[in-house]
């Protein structure tokens, strides 16, 4: 039994992780060898990601996936070599490195999946919120909350917030894909989503409405 008051142990890089860092920083053959081994590892991670998702891309062929894996591994290697100082040893080096390859592969796969699709940014695309003629499956209370949210989306959000929230939260556009189209970053778009959500929550609270999916509080 571990003691609940014990602070978590401070973890530094383990021996294997330190060896990776030393190898990657080395000059000559040793450095080259370490970078080649890391590239192999990243390629394996990229393929792992592709195998998880290839079902969502039925029109791509084996060769396309292999190109994509190599591009992801190449870019991940560059990113990692540029950020070696950022590795703080809080996880194994390989775990830290994998996330770069997975990210590169996932972003590419999402882009591919949306390559020929229109990214809906038009205001009329959020009519999924029920109006007075809502489907009978929606409860009266649900209709009230959704109706209030529809109003808030119109009146409380800026045009940019509306476009981004509707595209991501309602129309399921992947955030990286939207970031490409709008020439911005995932982080910047998520900030917009976050701010828009805060406004909607405030609007609901002001209207005395509650999002009942959350733990029940004593409501009076």
């Amino acid at each position, binding site marked *: 039994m571990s003691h609940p008051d014990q602070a978590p142990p401070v973890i530094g890089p383990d021996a294997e992780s330190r060896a990776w860092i030393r190898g990657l920083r080395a000059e000559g053959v040793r450095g080259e060898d370490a970078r080649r081994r890391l590239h192999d590892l990243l390629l394996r991670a990229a393929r792992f990601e592709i195998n998880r998702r290839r079902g969502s891309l039925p029109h791509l062929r084996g060769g396309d996936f292999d190109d994509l894996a190599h591009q992801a591994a190449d870019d991940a290697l560059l990113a990692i070599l540029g950020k070696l100082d950022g590795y703080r040893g809080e996880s194994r080096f390989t775990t830290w490195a994998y996330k770069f390859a997975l990210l590169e592969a996932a972003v590419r796969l999402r882009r591919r999946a949306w390559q020929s699709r229109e990214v809906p940014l038009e205001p009329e695309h959020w009519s999924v919120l029920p109006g007075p003629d809502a489907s009978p499956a929606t*409860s009266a209370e649900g209709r009230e909350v959704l109706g209030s*949210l529809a109003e808030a989306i119109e009146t409380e959000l800026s045009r940019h917030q509306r476009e981004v929230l509707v595209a991501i939260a309602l129309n399921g556009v992947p955030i990286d894909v939207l970031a490409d189209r709008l020439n911005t970053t995932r982080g910047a778009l998520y900030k917009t989503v976050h701010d828009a959500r805060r406004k909607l929550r405030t609007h609901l609270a002001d209207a005395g409405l509650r999002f009942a999916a959350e733990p029940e509080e004593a409501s009076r």
Partner: protein
Amino acid sequence: MSERRTPDDLELLRNLLGPEGPELSCEQCFAELDRYVELELSEADPDLAVPGMRAHLEGCGACAEDHRSLRALVEAETAPE
């Protein structure tokens, strides 16, 4: 108390309203992802060590996918042969 909502409504509301409480940004999430996954796969409490991560993963579909992938890969790598 007896009102019911359909699963679609709940999903819609979750997507529109996002998680409650403070959450990390996408950049902070990526920075902590490897540590968080290793803590999850160990005995430690990852949410105590990285507050705001769980909420971000609930609110951000892309980071949630990245998290699932890294966790699955590390699990596969450390599984006994």
